[in-house]
């Protein structure tokens, strides 16, 4: 992509210096008969004349591109630019500004290259260290003529890296959850169309002929059919609390803030269930205009969820009203809420969903050291809030909503086991 506009060639202070000392020095040496001044000024005159004689004419054509513009946390990309029509130019310099969460190599973000036959190319490698959309420009570049006498400058702006969260490692022991869907990779507890063998039973009206087990039928002298368990999928509804971000984020290589843990955990859970053929939906609590992702399955849907997670920004100014409806969470869905649980909004929402008989688990993503602060008043305030929070968590646990800390693989196992156990019991839901 051609970068523009590239400014025309302009003389530099170096050229001004050479021209002034050279011309004035020569003239003064001749007028006042100063041979010493002639010798001292001569190199400047030669340099000024050389620079003027080799001045480039038209501005160079510069093409720059950032590729790939979408990466995962910790992955690298590069801004590459090529110069053409840069005849008589000497060298080129490109400089990328310091940006939060963007590492460049070299650290200064400055790359240089010599112009050979009017062409040059530079590449500024970059690495994104935190999820989100990051501006990396404007990248300033300058083309320099011989003796540094003339310069043509330009800017490549509007460059942005979309960094998808790198999901944490996550796994869950296979479970047999009750689900509404009749497609998927999980074996249902209910008989139905599927591939997993369930039993052999006598033929009934309505059974499909292709289900007849002829070997068993011959032995029993009566028609028998093979029954199977229905293949099913689970609808996992992820609710991400983005009302605020607690703790200090050090990017992919450092400490994780609450929102870091939330986003990466959401990505991990979504990836785990989507790759298992389940349906996953996403709802963001907090930022205005944050899109919600309806339930779907497949790797394309995983990318869609990661895209939305990438756009998450904490917005403490907006506390969403607690509505007593299900917020489009269908019955039978597995609701996983990820929250630092500092704002009571998330717990109230979880309580609201659980009161409708929907299985909901809350994953606590608050960093351990969030209460440590140099300011004793802030530290005390945090300790008081954490005590309140402990009481709120205990209250919601008492009404049957499991709250568990995010511990990567197996974080949801106790919850899933409990859900399977409770699915077998009679339940009473508020209507």
């Amino acid at each position, binding site marked *: 992509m051609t970068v523009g506009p590239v400014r*025309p*060639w*302009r*003389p*530099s*202070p*170096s*050229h*001004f*210096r*050479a*021209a*002034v*000392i*050279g*011309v004035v*020095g*020569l*003239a003064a040496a*001749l*007028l006042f*008969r100063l*041979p*010493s*001044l*002639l*010798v*001292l000024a*001569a*190199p*400047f*005159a*030669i*340099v*000024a*004349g*050389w620079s*003027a*004689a080799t*001045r480039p004419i038209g501005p160079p054509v510069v093409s720059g591109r950032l590729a790939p513009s979408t990466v995962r946390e910790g992955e690298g990309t590069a801004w590459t630019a090529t110069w053409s029509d840069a005849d008589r130019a*000497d*060298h080129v*310099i490109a*400089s990328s500004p310091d940006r939060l969460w963007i590492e460049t190599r*070299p*650290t*200064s*973000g*400055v790359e*240089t*290259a*010599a112009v050979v036959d009017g062409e040059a190319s530079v590449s500024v490698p970059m690495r994104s260290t935190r999820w989100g959309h990051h501006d990396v420009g404007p990248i300033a570049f*300058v083309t*320099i003529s*011989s*003796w*540094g*006498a*003339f*310069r043509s400058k330009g800017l490549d702006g509007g460059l942005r890296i979309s960094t998808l969260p790198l999901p944490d490692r996550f796994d869950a022991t296979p479970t047999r959850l009750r689900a509404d869907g009749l497609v998927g990779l999980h074996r249902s507890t209910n008989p139905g169309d599927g591939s997993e063998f369930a039993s052999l039973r006598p033929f009934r009206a309505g059974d499909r002929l292709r289900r007849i087990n002829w070997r068993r039928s011959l032995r029993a002298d009566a028609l028998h059919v093979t029954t199977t368990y229905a293949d099913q999928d689970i609808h996992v509804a992820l609710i991400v609390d983005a009302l605020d971000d607690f703790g200090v984020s050090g990017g992919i290589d450092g400490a994780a803030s609450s929102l870091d843990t939330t986003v990466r955990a959401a990505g991990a859970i979504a990836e785990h269930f989507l790759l298992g053929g389940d349906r996953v939906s996403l709802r963001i609590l907090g930022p205005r205009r944050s899109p919600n992702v309806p339930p779907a399955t497949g790797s394309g849907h995983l990318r869609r969820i990661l895209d939305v997670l990438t756009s998450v920004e904490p917005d403490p100014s907006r506390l969403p009203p607690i509505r007593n409806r299900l917020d489009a969470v269908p019955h039978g869905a597995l609701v996983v809420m990820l929250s630092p649980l500092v704002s009571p909004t998330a717990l109230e929402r979880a309580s609201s969903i659980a009161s409708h008989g929907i299985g909901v688990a809350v994953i606590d993503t608050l960093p351990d050291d969030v209460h440590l602060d140099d300011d004793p008043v802030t530290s005390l305030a945090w300790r008081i809030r954490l005590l309140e929070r402990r009481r709120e968590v205990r209250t919601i646990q008492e009404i049957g909503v499991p709250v568990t800390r995010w511990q990567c693989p197996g974080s949801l196992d106790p919850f899933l086991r409990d859900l399977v156990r409770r699915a077998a019991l009679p339940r009473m839901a508020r209507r």
Partner: protein
Amino acid sequence: MRVQAIVDEFHRTTAQHWRLRAIAVFAALGAVLAAAGANGRLWPAGLVIVTALALASAVRADTNVALLLVVVVVWHWLATIDDASTPWLPVAAVCLLVHHTVTALTASLPAGGELPRQVLVEWVRRTALVGAATVALWAVVALLDGRAADGNGALTALALAAAGALAVTIRSRSLDPNR
């Protein structure tokens, strides 16, 4: 905030950049020491002034500080030395040329930048060419100065016309034709 920016720039500056800055400073000091060698007297105040200007021009190469430095050195030379045949003259001229060249080279280069070897070799080659031409010119000047010939008005006028033509050419090619 400004102090922090200076500290950051200090940390970012590459070894190559430090070397180029050192060359710029020592070249300027070399010109002053060449003057001392020519007249046999050190100029302590000038040494301090030139060192300060050289440091300033090395750190802020994209300014006109280097112009002031060259003017000070040339003025000192003309004020104290009246001998064009001294071999210290081409030394001072080449030192000033080196200072100018290195300052021009680093003017557009951010502190964290490093120039490719190919560019450095090309600049050294050019500087050596101009330096050689300067030494040759000094040899001619020293030869003519030794002959103590009478002034030639026509030749002087011709030389002035040539200097004027050079000035006009440089000016016309330096300014943007669209401005």
